[in-house]
């Protein structure tokens, strides 16, 4: 599609969204900030009724602001809890604009999607329990490049996906739209319903395109209704469905049905000849064809040829695992309570009410006397001043367990065991400072030994390290297995494991204790894959004098950071490891 065609679709999308804001979920606008995006947003604003609320949601919005909670000023003034509406509830009947949606945190995403699903926000915070209507449309401004995307759960709920990155400002000609037309369409919308055959056709097409989520066909049907309302049709027509397919289904398509699969047998999909035909217009006007073919043809026309080619039968995964959710975050706003402090009420700070009241209590008679000059009835019952505020502090458990896996085999001992020991000692000291736990596993001869189960005791760790003998074969697989088992049990305790492997990577003892390099290496590789699959953070320090392919291959296999450190002393070694562990 040409830039002008993309722009024209984008304009249509803005109008469709304006007709049914909450019904269509919203628009995912993938575009860098710039004049094109500004022009589109201006256009959208003109389409929305003047009464429509547009709320900006900044990326780092505090949870309390998003959901609502206690209005402290009003509460203290009134002497009873006064709720404050959150941004989502304030946006009821309007639009929220999510800035930098590609960096949206998991928490914010969940709150927004929950409100989209339920049409209301449920708040259980600060001693309040509230349900507030929150029906809004979403404009997600996705500024991601390449494989950075807005969260999949959000994308799934927004009907219209636009990508304006490819078009220039010259394509984006200004439209003057008649806002009255949109208002009329909004009035027509309730009378428009898709019929059974249309529902079936959209579902069939979505399935054929490999779209698993059932929200997609539902949203496509809503867009079709909006389109019919906008064009003034008395019922949903073919062209409305075709437009919905182009705007809703095409951006979600994972596969394009080949000649003989994925499509229902009674309605053969377009043949090769048709598929190569560029003229989408005449295909759509062909009224004799089955409805779902019309839809598929519309989708096909909307997908660029090169992308179409990539959408093989195997499909193309556009999904992305976010990975952010599992990571532990440090926070002063949640986690385990860790005492109370005098402090100012900044965003996100949690007032500890009882402590605040306790602080204020002794001063009440004095303050009452002081305030007695003022009007009696307007005076709050309890006089609380800024100095009384007590803030709860929280500490989130982010305890990590650093597992050292030390190669004490003959080959490693010869080269570097002493330095490795020194480095581990320094690292241990650092872990101790951070109150992290450490564990130590050594492998030599034919097996791996857990020399030190997870502990905070530095002395014990040092002792077991000092007594570490060297020599024998290199049972790397056994060592990695032991590290994997330990990290699994660490995880079960709710802690985060990090594995640091110090080895030269020359495995020569297999899992069953048998000798022979090829088998040992195979086993080591499979053990490495196991660690990778478990998603454990690993750093591999290659201690051999000539860091070679074997160490690097193992590191790659387990998704580890690879640090070749042939001539480093203990201090540099520990520094490098620390830097890469972060």
């Amino acid at each position, binding site marked *: 599609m040409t830039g002008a065609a993309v722009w024209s679709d984008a304009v249509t999308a803005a109008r469709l969204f304006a007709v049914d804001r909450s019904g269509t979920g919203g628009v995912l606008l993938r575009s860098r900030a710039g004049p094109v995006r500004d022009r589109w947003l201006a256009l959208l604003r003109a389409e929305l009724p003047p009464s429509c609320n547009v709320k900006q949601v900044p990326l780092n919005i505090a949870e309390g602001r998003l959901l609502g909670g206690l209005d402290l000023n009003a509460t203290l003034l009134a002497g009873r809890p006064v709720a404050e509406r959150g941004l989502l509830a304030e946006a009821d009947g309007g639009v929220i604009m999510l800035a930098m949606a590609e960096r949206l945190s998991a928490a914010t995403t969940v709150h927004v999607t929950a409100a989209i699903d339920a049409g209301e926000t449920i708040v259980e915070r600060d*001693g309040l329990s509230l349900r507030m209507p929150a029906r809004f449309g979403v404009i997600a401004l996705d500024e991601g490049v390449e494989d950075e995307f807005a969260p999949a759960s959000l994308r799934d709920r927004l009907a219209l996906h636009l990508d304006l990155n490819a078009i220039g400002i010259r394509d984006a000609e200004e439209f003057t739209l008649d806002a009255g037309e949109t208002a009329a369409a909004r009035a027509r919308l309730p009378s428009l319903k*898709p019929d059974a055959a249309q529902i079936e056709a959209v579902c*069939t097409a979505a399935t054929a395109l490999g779209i698993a989520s059932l929200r997609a066909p539902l949203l496509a049907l809503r867009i079709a209704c909006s389109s019919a309302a906008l064009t003034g049709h008395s019922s949903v027509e073919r062209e409305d469905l075709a437009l919905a397919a182009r705007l809703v289904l095409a951006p979600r398509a994972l596969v394009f049905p080949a000649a003989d699969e994925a499509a229902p047998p009674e309605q053969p999909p377009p043949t090769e000849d048709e598929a190569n035909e560029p003229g989408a217009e005449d295909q759509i006007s062909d009224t004799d064809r089955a409805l779902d073919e019309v839809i598929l043809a519309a989708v096909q026309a909307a997908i660029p040829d090169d992308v179409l080619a990539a959408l093989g039968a195997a499909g193309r995964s556009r999904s992305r695992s976010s990975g952010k959710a599992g990571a532990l975050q440090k926070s002063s706003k949640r986690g385990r309570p860790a005492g109370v402090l005098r402090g100012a009420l900044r965003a996100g700070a949690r007032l500890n009410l009882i402590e605040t*009241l306790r602080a204020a209590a002794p001063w009440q008679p004095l303050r009452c006397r002081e305030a007695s000059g003022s009007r009696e009835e307007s005076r709050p019952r309890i006089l609380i001043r800024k100095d009384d505020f007590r803030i709860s502090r929280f500490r989130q458990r982010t305890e990590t367990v650093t597992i050292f896996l030390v190669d004490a085999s003959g080959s490693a001992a010869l080269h570097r065991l002493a330095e490795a020991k020194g480095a581990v000692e320094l690292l241990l000291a650092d872990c101790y400072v951070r109150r992290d736990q450490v564990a130590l596993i050594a492998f030599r001869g034919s097996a791996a030994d857990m020399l030190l189960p997870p502990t905070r005791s530095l002395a014990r760790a040092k002792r077991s390290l000092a007594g570490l003998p060297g020599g024998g074969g290199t049972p790397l697989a056994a060592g990695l297995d032991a590290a994997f088992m330990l990290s699994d049990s660490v*995880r079960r305790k709710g802690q985060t494991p990090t594995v640091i492997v110090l080895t030269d990577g020359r495995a020569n003892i297999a899992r069953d204790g048998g000798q022979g390099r090829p088998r040992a290496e195979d086993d080591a590789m499979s053990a490495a894959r196991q660690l990778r699959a478990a998603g454990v953070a690993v750093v591999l320090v290659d201690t051999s004098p000539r860091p070679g392919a074997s160490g690097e291959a193992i590191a790659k296999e387990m998704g580890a950071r690879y640090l070749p450190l042939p001539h480093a002393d203990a201090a540099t070694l520990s520094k490098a490891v620390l830097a890469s562990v972060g």
Partner: protein
Amino acid sequence: MATAFPFSAIVGQDEMKLALLIAAVDPKIGGVLAFGDRGSGKSTAVRALAALLPKMKVVAACRYNCDPDRPAEFCEECRVSAAKGALKSAQVPVPVVDLPLGATEDRVVGALDLERALARGEKAFEPGLLARAHRGFLYIDEANLLEDHLVDLLLDVAASGENVVEREGLSIRHPARFVLVGTGNPEEGELRPQLLDRFGMSVEVKTPDNLADRIEVVRRRDAFESDSDAFVTKWAKDEAKLRRKIMIAREKLSSVSVPDVTLERAAKLCMALGTDGLRGELTLMRAARALAALDSAKTVTDDHLRRIAPSALRHRLRRNPLDDAGSSVRVDRAISEVLR
């Protein structure tokens, strides 16, 4: 609150629906975890269950939903008023309480009543969500994203059946036994193993891949959204039938017998799968019994075991990260070996 989609109108998702019904028949099984694809109707099913459940008897105006027929389990307040005279009882809908993400600890466990503290300087306890969910369901959407400190709290209460509050100078304990229902999308993060273990049953939810079902889902959803009242009326008969089935099953539950042979097979199944602890066997047995009660059967048979074993055991297998997708397959394999 918005009208709930009727439970009986949910297309497919038989495993999830069955697990929810079993949890409704025997709350002691320990809840249901539904993990799966986006837009597959997980939340819809849980909300539908709330509307489906028959009403329950409570002490009128009790803040903890005490059961008037079980004086041994009364909260402090009911104990005091029971000593003074007979308690009034009332019929209320079974609570299905949402634990929304972003909830604060004070609202979950209960805390000092702010209004009374500010207005009258009184120290009074305001019960939280756990009190409200007593004898009902506690529903966590996106359970895998729940903050750790809330998870710890839930684990503790779910294990003991009692909520102990020691905060802000308050010292309160009250019964809190509820069926935990969690939903989530595994792509967004995993559940802590400890919490996973608390759920009696876990089901995998997939969007239906058969075209006719998909069309039916969209059609019903569309009909519901355009006129929810008419849609609910249309399904009212099916709902009533299902409700009656739950009530009958609850009555029959205690009379369903579990033959020794079946117990032995359940144990063998768990051994074959290497599930940790005895919780697996216990849950499997209870769930099979509830299923038999739903079927109006007098004894638990192998067939009941076979039908419920995947849900009861799937999340209890020792994890093998290289074989991640395979836990259902492993259960199926064990079933076909043990229950020939």
